């Protein structure tokens, strides 16, 4: 009776073990990547919030300037109301000049 068992040039056990090891290392690597991603996310989020707070300070200054401009009485400051206003039609803008 002829032995019909398949003969491979390498051990299936070694192949399976290697695969498990590779998958496991990949798994750990993925975890490391995810953790690095998480750490970066925290760092960037902090950075964004800090920048937002800085922008908020500038926005506060802008809005305070608006309020000051609005409340200023320019006549009392010595400026004169224009004696007349002339309206002209806006020139049409074109890129072909």
């Amino acid at each position, binding site marked *: 009776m002829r032995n019909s068992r398949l003969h491979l040039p390498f051990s299936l056990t*070694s192949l399976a*073990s*290697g695969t498990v*090891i590779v998958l*496991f*290392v990949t798994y*750990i690597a993925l*975890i*490391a990547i*995810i*953790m690095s991603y*998480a750490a970066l*996310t*925290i760092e960037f*989020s*902090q950075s964004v*919030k*800090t920048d*937002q*707070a800085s*922008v*908020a*300070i500038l*926005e*506060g200054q*802008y*809005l*305070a300037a*608006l*309020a000051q401009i*609005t*409340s200023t009485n320019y*006549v009392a400051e010595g400026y004169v*109301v224009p004696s007349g*206003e002339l*309206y002209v039609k806006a020139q049409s803008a074109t890129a072909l000049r």
Partner: protein
Amino acid sequence: MRAQFRSRIRYVLVGLIIITLGIFLRLYVIQIIEGNDYMLKADKQFSSGSTGLFDRGSIYFTSKDGTLISAATLATGFLVAINPQTLVDPEAAYAAIAPLASTTISKDDFMADAAKKSQVYIEVAHHLSSDAGQTLNAENIPGVQVLVERWPVYPGGDLAAQTIGIVSYGSSDTLTGQTGLEAEYDDTLSRSGSLYSNFFAEIFSNVGNMLVSADNAREGDVVTTIEPEVETRLLSDLAKVNTQYSSQGTGGIIMDPHTGAIIALGSVPTFDPNDLQNVDPSLLRNPLVENVYEFGSIMKSLTMASGLDAGVITPQTTYDDTGCITVNKAQICNFDLKARGITPMLQVIEQSLNVGASWIATQLGQEKFRNYFLSYFGTKTGIDLPAEQGALLNNLRTTEQVNFDNMSFGQGISVTPVAMIRALAAIANGGVMPPPHLASAIQLDSGTLKPLDWGNGTQVFSAQAAQEVTTMLETVYPNDARLAINADPSLQYANVPVAAKTGTAQVEKPGGGYYTDVYFHSFYGFFPANNPQFVILLYTNRPQGVQYASGTLTATFMDLTNFLADYYNIPPDPQDVLPLPAHVTE
């Protein structure tokens, strides 16, 4: 050779396994066993040790060029805490902290805290600037911790404060929106996640939620239609009126009559949400949606539109004005008690005749009048602000004609300012009441801008009726403008056609009846009258030393009209502007 290769492979594999196990073990130690210690270290570096960093979405104004400007956002700074058990020299610590604190720290309180040796963490100062916090941290004082913190901040201060609202602890132990848009959109603005969650543990326990979070799809920032420069101008003008006439409150709304987008709104007195410790709680209330008022004669515009739409009158219809009439044993008179004789409908609006408005109400009949006014005020506007009040319409449910006559000129019917401008906007919008709203979009954390659809509004009378009332309202404005210019020659008459109407209502006494010398003034108008872009409603409650609204609010309306025309580059239209009369008698 093959055996040698296989043995080398085995060595490599064993090495990999050892390295992997080492990494795995180290990660386990760091994340699980020593996780809390590292988290505390992180907290010491980045946040308050007790609660973590506060996080919340922003609310934005939108300038006319589309730039978003924060109305409510977060500030980042430092808090200072002491550990009485390790604080060696309280005097020196106080001397270092006190000059850097944003508010005054009581030395007695500080020393009392430092003496509490049973405690390990007491916060002594908040809201230090970044520079101050870093300076203090560099001193490395034993027993003193300098921790990062965030808190809500409102860059505009009192700008639209009652509308933007506030965040506070309220009845819970977390900061939540309590009033205004902060409360209305609290679900959107709140942040449920924590940056300091244990990612390693989450990977094993909750993989699905890490990839797709329903919260992230909902959380975002609120983009409003409020234009900051217009808002600033409106509030400045309202404050001037309130101060000049010692009123008990002055408010205003500027709205796009086609979409219902509110461009500016506000009332004074108001408050600074950055300094809530010194705020009178009654000022947190938003009178534009939470208070109801009897608006007086600006209601005649709606009475006129109802009569024209129902077909019971036309612009050419006349009536016999006797100056006073008696209805259900009550007397109704014109403001000056004078009779006009045969009078056309135009004069009912132009001269603001109470007898004429009552005559239109009688022509309409109670059922039609009731149906029209229920369509204007029977439902809340649905504006995106909390605690909106409904109108007081009890008189609509009676059968006494005197009540309907009174309502026809704005007495005996109380509505919120936002309900009033919604109804009046129908005149500027072809008979369609637009849906008033403040938020135009939600900017999701993902970066996606999700526009909000507010619908098209409700048709309450015909476009023809709206146009006929507009024509009448246009005749009112030049007379009021002349009176205002006589009082203040620096005022400018608009270069665009304007439709407007004033209202002066008597204020109801608490026990019934009306004061004879206490008034509520209102002013309503829109422009350009032939293609309205803005509708404006102004009011001032109980102004002192002046009887009629033309004396208090016309100048404010003119200033706002000129400002808006300039700011939004509305081209002048001198052909359609009615001439300013040379003389007008009050």
